[in-house]
């Protein structure tokens, strides 16, 4: 599975899922591993699958056929490729959150 650069619509979908798991005060010097760990620890299985589905473009059924570490690698690559911090920042600036 390869992580893709998302179109705006899907990028915003991804941001809306991950928004709640990304701390506004993320330290610029934080370890990437801690950052990903914080997300993976809190995210629900469905959300995780949905994120990978958006990032890879594969169906959820196809994702389930993959080995877990490939799925995780794809997820991490997707966050990197789509500059998730900038994306979430942008998403928040639009005021699209339900509780906004």
């Amino acid at each position, binding site marked *: 599975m390869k992580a893709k650069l998302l179109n705006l619509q899907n990028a915003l979908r991804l941001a809306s899922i991950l928004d709640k798991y990304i701390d506004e005060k993320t330290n610029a*010097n934080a370890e990437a*591993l801690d950052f990903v760990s914080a997300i993976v620890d809190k995210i629900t299985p469905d959300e*995780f699958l949905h994120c990978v589905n958006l990032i890879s473009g594969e169906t959820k059924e196809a994702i389930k056929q993959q*080995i877990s*570490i490939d799925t995780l*690698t794809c997820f991490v690559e997707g966050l990197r490729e789509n*500059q998730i911090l900038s994306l979430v*920042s*942008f998403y928040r600036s639009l005021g699209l959150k339900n509780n906004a």
Partner: protein
Amino acid sequence: MLNTPGQIDLIATQILLDAQAAIRGLELFNRSTDDAGKKVEILKSIIERVAAQMGGDLAKAAEVVAVFANGLTGIKKGAVEAALALAQLNAQMLAGGSNPKFAGFGNAQETNVAKESYDNFAKHTQIVADFQDKKDTWFEKDAANQNKIFEQTQAGYVAEEQAVAKLQKQKDDWWAKDTANQNKSFEKTIADYKSLEQAVPRVATQNFGNINSYIAQATNKVQAWKGVIKSVMAETGGSVEAVGTQLKKMVSGASVAPLNKAVKELGGNFENVAKKSKYSIDVIRTALGVLTAMLVNIVLSAFVNFFKTSIQGAMDLEKSLWRLRNAEIALSQQGVEISMKGLTKGAEEIAKRLEVFTSQEILEALSDASQGLAKFGFTEQQLLSLTEGVAIMAKVSNSGKTLEQIMNDVMTSLISPQGKSIASLNIGFGEVVMTAKALEKGFIKAGEAASDLTAEENRQVKYLIFLDEVNRNIDTMGEYLDTNTAKIEKNTVAWKNFSDTVGQTWNNLIPDMSNTFEYMQKNIEQMNFAQLISDTARLNKKAVEFSPIVTKMFWGIKLTKKETHKIIDLLSSMKPNDILKIFPDPAKIKNDQVREFVEFIVKLKETATELPDPLLPPHPTQEELDAFDKLQEELQQVAKDAVKAYDELRILTKQKYAKIELDLKLKLKDIDTEFAQKLEDLERELQQKLQDIAIETQQKIDDLKSQAREDEMRSELEFQQRMKELRQQFLMDLDDALHARDARQVLRLIKQYELDKKQALDKKKLDDKLRAEKLATDIKAAKLEEQRKIQEANREAARKEQELAIEKQREIDAANLKRRQELDALKLWNEQEMKEIQRHSLEKLTELIDAYNAEWDTHVQYQKDIAKLIADYVATNEAAMAHMYAYMASLYTGISSMYAGAQSMIGGLNYVAPSNSPQSIYGFAEGGSIIADKPTAAIFGERGRELVTFTPLDKTGRDVNKLFGDTSGIGTSGGRMLIEMLLSPDLEARVIENSLSRTAEIVARVSRSK
């Protein structure tokens, strides 16, 4: 197989759990900073877990883990490989029924071995990890020590460089001073200089054993030493003196005196060699001087001669046609059926059939025949047959006469009644033959004789006899056409026909070229001569002295007497033959000044034969003379080859240049077409949008009207209902009042009823009015909205049009940039090719001279002189070529374009030579990105603000910002964010710039592409 809905959560949960476990594994790995064994153990666990999902394939699992781990933590592949090895070891042990972790499981020996190997492995890994840690720590902390090492290394390099420079200087000093020891080629000398001291004793001992004993045994000791010296010199390349000096060190006492004598005698011989070499130098110098001038002549003469010959041929052709035209007019006036068209066509056909005559030659013969025989009643066909017959007989008769001469002979015999034969063709017109032919053709009856024929009949009979003779020779002509001689003639004819055609073209373009050519020839002669003076002066080291004279000659300025004498003095060193090579026929030189000079010098030389030629050796042998001649010929051939190569390069360069220009033209055309199409699309979109707006507005107005109508109907119904109710109420009240016989009440009721009716009617009118007003207001608003939308659509279209114009300009700029880069590359290529030609010529010349030197034992000092001569010659060669092309270019626009195609294009590129900087500096005013695999300089921001980021590719890095974007915007306010949307082909969008967030200004940049 698809999972059932019930399984979905389980699998997804499992995937997430696995992910969490993997992440936790990495975290553990990161935290175990002091225990490398533990680290490997953790990685091993991750690999094993992943392998479990991959059917137990540990190697594959390790690959996957390596990618994953490196992506997030920078764990190196080596660490994963170590963990893999551990996992594989464990797997093997488990497969063998053992487990290294549990004592007592499996047999004791195996367990111990396994445990030992595991411990060793862990220990080894620990050592490696410790070493790595220490190394890393050292790199991080011990900067001072590293600098020291670096400085030491640098100092080492500097010392080495200095040593090299010192050696170089020693070599240069030696080269400048030690001329005596340079009697050999440079490389050999270098080698020998270093090792002569060792080489001489070694070679002498190898060839002659104990040198003292060898000399002692010889009857003639001096002769023996000479043999030794020559032999050692041949192998070591050392000079007589140098070899003698080394040999002296090997001998003692009585052998020294004959050795000194031998050295002295060989030195005497050396003097003779030097004289001969001096002579060689002079000859080569002269040859090269002549060659340079000849080089100019070769190409220029080829041009001039071709055009001159072509034009002369074309003029002859025209002359023949003119004569033919006169003949045709004369014949037509006499009533003979003849046409210019028929004659020229017939002539062409004859030339085509016979192949060995040019069209012009046949036309000339035909025009002679037509003019000569016009008044004697020969038809067009007869004239053509006669011409063809004469042409055939001219080839097969072996008379040695030209076509024109034979035509004259034939015509004379035909016209003259007394003509009894055509002597040159051995054709007789005797009484018997004439009578027989006349009888055969019915000109006379039986019993009559040829003498009874009229003059005209006489000519016709002779003509028929001539044709019979021609027919008898047709087979011979066929055989002749198959001979090699005929084939060569055919080629010549083809060339002649071609050059006539070219000449005709030139005649059409420039009716009077002869003056131009004469002018040109004069200029070429003058330039040629000036070039000769320049070269000779330079070769005689008098270039500065003669420079003003040469300039004057180039510009055609008259020389003073003193200057004239100086030139004569200078050229007196040349042989007449050399001058004649440049100006083969001095009498035909059109430039008066040049002709006088050349004639004077040649004459002076011819009349002064009794004086000894300073260039000739005292007693040159025939062998020596032949060798010089051969050398000269070969040098000339090299020059000719160089000219050819330059010519080919010029043509090739022109072709490449034309292709680059054509590519650009096509690209610009494509861009034009593409953007014209885009503009059309834009216009169509706008029109569609305007139409949509109009339809939408109309629809809205219709809806409003329809609504208004519905409201009106509802109001009317309500009004009618109200009226009905009022009436019913009134009737009921009236009925009550009538029953009560209350007249006052009746009247009041009637009055009340009328009032209610009026009020209801008034209300209805008011409602109607308000509705109408509302409708009008709504329609007006809809129309205003329409206007607003139209303006918006027009603004949008104008903006898009502007964007298109910018995009188009960018593409045009890119195409021009590409062209410029290609031209730069072409220029570079051309320069390299030029250098290659020059190098090749130089190499060949050097080779020839070297061979000559080797054969004639030339002294090294003269070798150097020769080398310099060649270098000068090559430089002159190029200068002469450039000069020549420029000169030709000034005379002809056609040639100018040919030259300009290659030369001005190359010269006028504003080429910027690469700087000394080892890397190019990239500019990014238009944006862009590159992968730098070495230290790279770049310029940005030169045309305004630009965003710059640098991302290392060989290591992922652990900084969250680098990996996942900038976090600086989170939690702050204000600023700007740039989003790039690539609408095609994959509808991509990305945040490409993010400075701040929350209330950020969002700038969307949309790129649309096919």
